[in-house]
C-alpha cells in the first residue's frame, strides 16, 4: 500500500444472488483528497461504501481502508472512519448534544474529552445554539450538519458521505459543501457519493462515474472532459480587430475557430491557449473585452458518455440493492 493512499479497492464485487450490484471495481483515494462516487441511483455506490465499512459482506476482491481489512478488522476501520448515511437519522426524542454523546460513548471517549469534542463539533457546523434542542425540531439541513458534526467529533481520518446534499435547498447545500471543503484543509480524506453532478463537481478532486455496478470513468473533471468530450479546451474571446480569427487559428494547438457572434470567437484547442490568444489580440492593437475558458461540466461529460455508449438495462436486483 502506498504511503499516501487511504482507501485501496481491488476488484471489489458484491452479488445479491444472481444479480451483481458491484462488479469488480478498483480505485484508490489519496490522503486529503475529496473523491466523488457519482452515478444514478442503483449504480452500486452505497453498496461499495457499506463494503468499505464492513457493514455488508464482500463477495469477491478486497479493500483496504487505512491499511485495515474491513472484513477482519471492522472495529479498527470504524474507529477511524466517519460515515454519514443517505438521509441520516437521529433519535428524535434526544437533543442534538445527547445524540452525539451516545455516539461518543460508543466510540469510548471519556467524559471531559467527550464534552469538549461535542461542543467543538457543534460549533463548527453552526449548531451550537441548538445543541440542547430535541432533534425532532430539526430541519433536514440541520440533521445533515449534525451528521457532519458527528464525524468531526469522532476525529475521523476519512469521512464517507452518502448523498450528503440530496434533498437540501441551495443555501443549505452551499453551507454543507463549505464544511466538506473544511475537512480537506485538515487533511481528512472525503469520499462522497452523489447523483447530483453539478453540485459535486465544485468540491471533488477526482471522481469515479458509476454505471450499473462498474466504474465507467475515473479521474479529475478536466481529464474526464478531455477523454469524453474530446476537444479538450474551449476558449471564448470577445475582441475587435480584422483578421483576428485567421491569426488566432495559427496559434499552435488550436484546432478550430468558430464565430459565435459579432466580435465573439470560440477557439477549440488541446490546451489552455488564453495567454497566446491575449498576446495576439494585443499585437493587433485590438481591444480585448472578454477572455474565458470553459470548464468541462460533469453534466456534459456524463450525458455525452452515456449517449455514446447506451446504458445497459440495469437488472432489477441491482436496482433494489441500491
Amino acid at each position, binding site marked *: 500500500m502506498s504511503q499516501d493512499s487511504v482507501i485501496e479497492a481491488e476488484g471489489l464485487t458484491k452479488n445479491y444472488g444472481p444479480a451483481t450490484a458491484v462488479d469488480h471495481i478498483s480505485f484508490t483515494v489519496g490522503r486529503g483528497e475529496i473523491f466523488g462516487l457519482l452515478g444514478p441511483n442503483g449504480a452500486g455506490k*452505497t453498496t461499495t461504501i*457499506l463494503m468499505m*465499512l464492513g*457493514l*455488508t459482506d464482500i463477495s469477491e476482491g478486497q479493500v483496504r481502508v487505512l491499511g485495515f481489512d474491513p*472484513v*477482519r*478488522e*471492522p*472495529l*479498527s476501520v*470504524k*474507529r477511524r*472512519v*466517519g*460515515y*454519514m*448515511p443517505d*438521509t*441520516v*437519522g*437521529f*433519535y*428524535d*426524542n434526544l437533543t442534538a448534544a445527547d445524540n452525539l454523546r*451516545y*455516539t461518543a*460513548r*460508543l*466510540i*469510548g471517549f471519556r467524559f471531559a474529552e467527550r464534552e469538549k469534542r461535542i461542543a467543538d463539533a457543534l460549533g463548527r457546523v453552526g449548531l451550537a445554539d441548538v445543541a440542547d434542542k430535541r432533534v425532532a425540531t430539526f430541519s433536514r439541513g440541520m440533521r445533515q450538519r449534525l*451528521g457532519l458534526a*458527528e464525524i468531526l467529533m469522532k476525529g475521523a481520518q476519512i469521512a464517507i458521505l452518502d448523498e450528503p446534499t440530496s434533498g437540501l435547498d441551495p443555501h443549505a447545500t452551499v453551507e454543507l459543501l463549505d464544511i466538506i471543503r473544511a475537512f480537506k484543509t485538515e487533511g481528512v480524506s472525503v469520499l462522497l457519493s452523489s447523483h447530483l453532478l453539478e453540485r459535486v463537481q465544485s468540491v471533488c478532486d477526482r471522481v469515479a462515474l458509476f454505471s450499473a455496478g462498474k466504474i465507467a470513468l475515473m479521474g479529475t473533471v478536466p481529464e474526464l472532459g478531455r477523454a469524453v468530450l474530446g476537444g479538450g479546451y474551449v476558449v471564448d474571446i470577445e475582441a475587435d480587430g480584422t483578421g483576428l480569427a485567421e491569426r488566432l487559428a495559427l496559434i499552435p494547438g488550436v484546432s478550430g475557430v468558430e464565430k459565435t457572434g459579432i466580435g465573439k470567437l470560440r477557439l477549440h484547442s488541446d490546451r489552455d491557449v488564453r495567454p497566446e490568444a491575449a498576446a495576439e489580440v494585443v499585437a493587433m492593437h485590438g481591444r480585448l473585452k472578454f477572455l474565458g475558458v470553459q470548464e468541462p461540466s460533469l453534466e456534459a461529460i456524463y450525458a455525452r458518455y452515456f449517449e455514446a455508449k447506451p446504458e445497459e438495462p440495469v437488472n432489477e436486483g441491482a436496482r433494489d440493492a441500491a
Partner: protein
Amino acid sequence: MQREGSAFSGLGVVMLKELSDHLTSVRMRVLEWLVVLVALAALYGAIQQIKDTTAEDPFLFLRLFTTSRDPLPSFVAFLSFLVPLMAIGLGFDAVNGEHSRRTLSRILSQPIYRDALLFGKFLAGLMTLSISLITLWLLVVGIGLLMIGIPPGAEEIARSFVFLLVTIVYAGVWLALALLFSILFRSAATAALVTLGLWLLLTFIWPVLAGAAAQIIVPPDPRYMALGLQTPGTAELEQILARLSPSTLFAEVVVALLDPTTRALGPIYLSQLQGAVLGSPLPLVESILIAWPQIVGMVASAIMLFVIGYVVFQRQEVRA
C-alpha cells in the same frame, strides 16, 4: 476467521441508553400504570376473599397471589396475562425502529459489533421488566402486610421470591419473541400485530387446540370414557402439546411454587399416591424440583428465540 476485539464493546452504553429510553417513554408509563392498577384491584379482591373465608392457613400470605374473587381473576392470572403484553410493548419495535428512524447504519458504523446492539436492547428490556416486576412484588408484599396483618414466614417469602424470578424469566421469553419479530419484519406495526397474534394463539387458543389435537391423534379409549375418566395416552399427549406454549409452562410453575401441596404437574396414577400424605405441604426445594423442567424449558426457549433473532440480524442488510 477471528474477529478483532470484543463482541460486547459498547454493550453497556447501548443498554443504558435503551434503559433510559424505556424508563422515560410514554409507552412504558402507560403499561406500568395499567399493571399497577390491575394488580391493586386483584389484590384487593384477594384480601377481601381471604378475610371472608380463611381462618387458619399455614400459607396465608401466598394466598394473596392466587386467590381470586369474582368478577376479578387472581393476581397471578393477571400477571400471566399482562407480563407478555409489557414485554411485547417494549420489544416489538426494537430493531425495525432503528431501521425506520434511519439510525441503524449510523450506529453500526461506530466501533461496535451488531452483537452489542442486539444484546444491549434485550438486556435493557429485561431490566426494565425486572424493575417493574420487583416494584410490583414489593408493593404486593407491603400491602399484604398492612391489610392482613400477619407477617409472612421465611418459606412464604422465599416461595414468592422464586415466583418473582420465574416471572422475570417468563417476561424474557416474550421479550425475545418480540425482539425476533422486530428483526424479521421491517414494519413495527406488522411486528406488533404478529407478536400479539402469536401471544393470543399460544395463551388462549393453544390449550384448547392441544386438547382437540390430542383426541384426534390418540382417540380416547371407550372403556375409560365409560368410567368418566381421561384416557392416559390422550391426557399425556394433550399435556405435551400444551407445554409447547410458554403460558402453560408458567402456569404450571406458578401452581407448584405458590401452592406447596402440589405434588406433581400432570396426570398422577394411583400407584404413585401410595404412602403420600395428601394435602401436606412440600418443602420449597421439592416444589422447585417439581417445576424444574418447566423453568428450564422457559429459559431455553428465551435463549433459543434470542439466538434465532441474533443469527437473522447478523445476516441482515443494514440499509433501509
